[in-house]
């Protein structure tokens, strides 16, 4: 250890009080699933954390019935003010247990504790606070007086922001008066089950929130259940397509948050050190497991070399390793499967002519890891410029004029996010107008807030989560 290195500063897992096994959370109780148990491991160590029940089709039916019954007899009849109070309770309990949730999330997902502690969990609480306040103000949602809730929502979420995605789904659904059946990702079910405990602590009426664990088959059974009024899915474009086909010809409302291949555009008049920070947070935040990641860097040709020098210098200071260490910047890849995919796509990037670079960094012996990787000399037709990698891999391309930057940025079937770096406000606004993406970050990147709608254009899906649009998505008369 040189004098420049930091001593290890791991967050203790002593705060956790986990069960060895978690059943399904249906109708306010933990019950055994009829499927086989599966184990969730820590991707940083490959050590098992706990076992979880697989939900069978019959179990899904029980969960949906519980949600329907709670909707009919309790939740749809309760005053908005009382629904709001339950959500405020939940928000407060999340704040009170935030350290525990952060540690559990880092353990199960592999992302650095500084992210779960400072980003994920505070946003989870903020999401519940924001929507709690909407529950008794639905008349102001712009859908006329007394807008109606939809009924039972089926919600399927990914592994990249496990508890945050749960909050994005459950908070607006409950505020609007719906009940839910939610399936967390197979590799990250832990915090959803801690959330189920929080629902019990908040004395939330039984059946309003039901959480069922399992793999893709469970999700399929859930979204194909015939007594569902709303489906909200965050995940891959391929599965999103399947769900869109499954609801064809029905009245089921659908919100899809799918893949992305976000362009991060750096103009030559940008504040370069800030832009470099933005490039880093754009693609290396959460190991690049971010659907709105800035995975394509479009840098103006005349500053390409300088930006690359500064970026490489900055990347060389990032610390990869134990996610529970408070100094860690880059955590573990969530699963072996995802690591294999990233590895294969990066190899393809090389074989198609991209120039590959990674900082020198020690890769731990156990667990799933991928060093931050930058490809320069990428052409727009290369696989790594077109396909979502969902990992810490940046594809760098250049442009000369704003028009060329816009054309290249929009040259993708996706349309989730984009970044613009320039000190010239008029240019930023003009470029923002022309980018076909649902979220544009100007001189910042990867910022989220419950008040700000989030969602995609084109094959990145439809419907919005967050803000007023995110509320309307769970009300009659609202879009999607």
């Amino acid at each position, binding site marked *: 250890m040189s004098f420049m290195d930091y001593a290890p500063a791991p967050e203790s897992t002593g705060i956790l009080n986990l069960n060895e096994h978690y059943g399904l959370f249906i109708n306010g109780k933990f019950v055994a699933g009829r499927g086989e148990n599966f184990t969730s491991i820590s991707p940083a160590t490959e050590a098992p954390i706990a076992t979880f029940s697989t939900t069978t089709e019959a179990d899904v039916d029980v969960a949906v019935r519980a949600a329907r019954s709670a909707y009919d007899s309790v939740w749809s009849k309760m005053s908005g003010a009382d629904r709001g109070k339950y959500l405020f309770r939940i928000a407060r309990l999340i704040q009170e247990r935030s350290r525990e949730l952060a540690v559990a999330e880092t353990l199960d997902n592999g992302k650095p504790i500084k992210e779960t502690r400072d980003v994920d969990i505070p946003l989870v609480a*903020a999401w519940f606070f924001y929507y709690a306040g909407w529950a008794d103000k639905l008349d102001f949602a*712009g859908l006329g007086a007394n807008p109606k809730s939809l009924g039972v929502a089926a919600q399927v979420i990914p592994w990249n922001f496990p508890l945050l995605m749960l909050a994005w789904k459950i908070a607006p659904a409950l505020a609007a008066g719906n009940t839910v059946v939610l399936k967390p990702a197979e590799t990250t079910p832990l915090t959803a089950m801690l959330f189920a405990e929080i629902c019990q602590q908040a004395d939330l009426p039984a059946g309003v929130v039901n959480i069922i664990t399992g793999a893709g088959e469970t999700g399929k059974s859930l979204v194909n259940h015939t007594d569902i009024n709303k489906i909200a899915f965050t995940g891959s*474009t391929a599965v*999103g*397509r399947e769900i*869109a*086909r499954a*609801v*064809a*010809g*029905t*009245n089921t409302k659908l919100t*899809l948050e*799918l893949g992305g291949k976000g362009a991060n555009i750096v103009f030559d008049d940008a504040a370069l050190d800030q832009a470099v920070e933005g490039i880093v947070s754009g693609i290396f935040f959460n190991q690049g497991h971010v659907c709105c990641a800035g995975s394509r860097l479009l840098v103006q040709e005349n500053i390409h070399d300088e930006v690359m020098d500064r970026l490489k210098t900055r990347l060389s200071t990032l610390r990869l390793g134990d996610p529970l260490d408070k100094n860690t910047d880059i955590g573990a890849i969530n699963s072996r499967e995802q690591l294999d995919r990233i590895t294969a796509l990066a190899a393809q990037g090389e074989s198609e002519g991209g120039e590959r670079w990674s900082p020198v960094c020690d890769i731990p012996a156990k667990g799933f890891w991928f060093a931050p990787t930058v490809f320069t000399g990428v052409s727009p037709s290369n696989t790594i410029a077109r396909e979502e990698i969902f990992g810490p891999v940046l594809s760098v391309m250049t442009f000369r004029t704003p028009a060329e930057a816009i054309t290249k940025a929009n040259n993708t*079937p996706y*349309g989730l996010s984009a970044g613009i770096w320039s000190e010239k*406000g008029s240019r*930023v606004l003009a470029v*923002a107008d022309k980018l076909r*993406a*649902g*979220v*544009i*970050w*100007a*001189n*910042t990147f990867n*910022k989220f*807030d419950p*008040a*700000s*709608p*989030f*969602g995609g*254009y*084109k*094959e*990145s*899906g*439809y419907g*919005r989560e967050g*803000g*007023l*649009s995110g509320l309307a998505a769970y009300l009659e*008369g609202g*879009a999607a």
Partner: protein
Amino acid sequence: MSRLAVPKTYKLFIGGKFPRSESGRVYEVNSVAGEFVANAAQGSRKDMRDAVVAARTAQPGWSGATAYNRGQVLYRIAEVLEGRKAQFVEEIMLVEGSSAKEAAAQVDAAIDTWIWYAGWADKYTQVAGQANPVSGPYFNLSVPEPTGVVGAIAPQSSGSLLGLVATIAPILVSGNTVVVVPREDAPLTAISFAEVMATSDVPGGVVNVITGSPAELAPWMASHADINALDLAGAGNLDWASLQIAAAETLMRTLAPVEGIPASSLNRITAFTEVKSVWHTKSLI
């Protein structure tokens, strides 16, 4: 001796021009009593593709026009339509078998619908957009924008002119361009309406009208990768579940069929928009 009438040749409307179908096909349009009225062009897949190219080409200009300008152009259509009321009344009576009073009421309703939507062009973003109070030093706005090129099936058993107008007006308000299949058995008003648009400052390609069979044309629309959204307003008698299944391939937005004429609503405007949230940093001072 009475004057010999000059019948009109009804063609397609693509990119501001009036071509015949590339397929060379026509079909007979008859009166309610079964008498021949005119031939209409039987649009084909290639006509549809040409229309999508025209719509895509026109889209940046139309959505890039100021909202005030779009509102004026849409209002101008209503003005020109008002002046040609008699022609539409005649076509509606002839083909739909309406009384003079019913036909006039339909044309009036079409004009008024058009005016209602024209006025939304410079207002819908204010009503449907938000300033978002995010927790941090950021300026954050969410604004609805046009989704792009929209394919539409106009109502197939309600008033042919009103159904067409109530379908395409809300699509156009935000800056989308449209390829529309009008009512199959009463397509004449749609082509006459295209003549109104051609003389009302509507840029070529903003509205494209393909007469013919919705059952034949809708699947090509639903599987066209350069159409962003599909309005199935008049597709109630088609296998619209299959159309939605085809549309899912590109995550094309779809709006389900309606009974009769689509009601005028802000929702029909926002259904063909995308909300864009823009964050901009505020400096610390």
